[in-house]
């Protein structure tokens, strides 16, 4: 039983570059009103250790007592579960005064909207497709997402692999804050419905790899210096030895994209919420941050020309290329981000780079431009968008 053997439901595995060629993500009715103009929490570039840590994310997996788990439930069961969960989330009310909940029924949402949610890391590709690891379900399978506006920091997936998956994202290293917000929402929902809970296995989930706390803590880190100094593998192996999963920014198989990684716990049973938090936020991530910062200083002091060459080569490509794939652009944006943080690139605001990490994704690119584009058109449009954003100040 391996946590990764059924399609990575835990981590929205967004726009892996392969998806771009396999199908047209923006099929169906295109509505330019979906253009994202809000500030996305994980791209703010703020918070503790923000030079290395982009964002922190907490996810709680919860299920209703007495109901089959979504993969094994009949479509009509799923419809009833969806209704009960949606109303419970509704009744739980807003998490803070200025936040409003937006409910998206994924059976009805146009493909472009679903695509944007995947790229913004709110939901997994699995939830987009509605297809479960056992082959059940499909795009018309009853499922939804509750997103708290305006910053989308909090969201709840309904009828993904579990009935409810509560998520909270914060910029920077801020797992403790995420966890207390997730717990508060969890308590509100639990005041309305009974959760499936077992004296020995804790919170019960469809996949036994998530039982116990049902808690997944993950942190998105940017490790370009460790990559250049060749120490990245050591860090990866150390993290794996500690029972942590290391994945690319947009999930499995996208490791090369800009040296952005998600690090998360795999064990959820036998360690309390606080212990898991302490391990990751108190021990593992600070160590990785220290290594990366050390590698950055080492490059600046001992291999200055090499560092400059990498950074300005990437900047040159971004400012001059006429066709660009999403994955390639992430790679260069990652190096330019490093250059800005090291003080080598002074004429680009880092928030523009952060915004581009999302804007270069197929769905967002088309939403930004307000039109559907073929893959070839997207490459041209992407290159021109990047040129524009990185040359005008």
């Amino acid at each position, binding site marked *: 039983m391996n946590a990764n053997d059924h399609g990575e439901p835990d981590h929205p595995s967004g726009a892996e570059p392969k998806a771009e060629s396999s199908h047209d993500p923006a099929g169906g009715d295109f509505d330019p009103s979906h253009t994202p103009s809000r500030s996305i929490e994980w791209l703010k570039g703020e918070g503790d250790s923000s030079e290395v840590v982009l964002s922190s994310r907490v996810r709680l997996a919860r299920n209703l*007592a007495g109901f089959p788990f979504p993969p094994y439930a009949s479509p009509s069961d799923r419809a*009833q579960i969806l209704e009960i969960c949606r109303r419970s989330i509704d009744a739980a009310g807003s998490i803070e005064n200025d936040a409003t909940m937006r409910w998206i029924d994924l059976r009805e949402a146009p493909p472009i909207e679903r695509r944007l949610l995947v790229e913004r890391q709110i939901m997994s590709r699995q939830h987009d497709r509605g297809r479960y690891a056992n082959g059940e379900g499909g795009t018309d399978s009853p499922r939804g997402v509750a997103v708290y506006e305006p910053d989308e920091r909090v969201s709840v997936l309904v009828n993904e692999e579990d009935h409810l998956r509560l998520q909270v994202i914060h910029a920077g290293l801020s797992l403790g804050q995420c966890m207390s917000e997730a717990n508060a929402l969890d308590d509100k929902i639990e005041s309305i419905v009974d*959760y499936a809970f*077992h*004296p020995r296995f804790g919170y019960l989930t469809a996949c036994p790899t998530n039982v116990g706390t049902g808690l997944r803590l993950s942190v998105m880190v940017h490790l370009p210096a460790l990559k250049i100094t060749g120490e990245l593998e050591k860090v990866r192996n150390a993290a794996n030895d500690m029972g942590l999963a290391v994945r690319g920014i947009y999930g499995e198989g996208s490791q090369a994209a800009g040296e952005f990684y998600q690090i998360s716990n795999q*064990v959820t049973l036998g360690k*309390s919420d606080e*212990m898991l938090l*302490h391990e990751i936020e108190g021990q593992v991530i600070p160590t990785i941050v220290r290594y990366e910062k050390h590698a950055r200083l080492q490059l600046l002091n001992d291999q200055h020309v090499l560092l400059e060459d990498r950074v300005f080569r990437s900047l040159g490509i971004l400012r001059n290329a006429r066709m660009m794939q999403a994955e390639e652009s992430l790679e260069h944006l990652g190096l330019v981000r490093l250059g800005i943080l090291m003080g080598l690139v002074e004429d680009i605001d880092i928030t523009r780079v952060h915004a581009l990490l999302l804007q270069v994704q197929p769905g967002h690119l088309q939403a930004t431009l307000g039109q559907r584009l073929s893959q070839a058109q997207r490459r041209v449009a992407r290159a021109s968008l990047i040129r524009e954003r990185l040359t005008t100040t």
Partner: protein
Amino acid sequence: MICECGQREATIHEVTIQNGAKVERHLCEHCATKLGVSTDPHVPISQLISNYIMGKNLAVPSVGGEDKPKQTKGFAPASAPCISCGMSFKDFKEHGLTGCPSCYESFKARLGPLIARAHEGGEQHIGKVPRRALSSLSDMTDSKRLENLIGGASEREQRLEHVRAQLAAAVRHEDYEHAALLRDEITRIASMPMSKPSAQIEPTSGACEPTTTRDD
């Protein structure tokens, strides 16, 4: 197709599994509402939940309620499917997904070792417990339901033992921050409400009630 009631056109079709067998149902809007298949916005959440459960001929689940499948006639054959959802252990092995919460009890003996392996030896949940359920059951005299939620004295001892072992390891490694967290956890577990052992409950007036005995 005509609804089960034989009066109206069936517009809602569903397949459920009862006692391991697939049951197809074809219902009109009217009957569907009665059976909890409908999604009328005016029906309260609690009603939706109990409608669903009644529609499936299951006991209404309340937290700590007896939703674990009862062992029929002493022991069930190893190949027996989950009584609530009908999934077999073979199905589970194929996809790595359980069918419903009761599967964990149905397949406890075989799932236990697999779960421990996936969680680096973790066998006993510690940490958060559903808060409202815990506090509402703690006030009740029905200690059986509390026990079904968080376990009885033996589970508590198992939990404490587990945390004490971790604490000893943390102290050995001079990880005092971690040790402090573990001490907090011990305090928390020790302060959790305790269900009274059913043996100490006074026998009720004369009747030889079939007391709920546990065989663990």
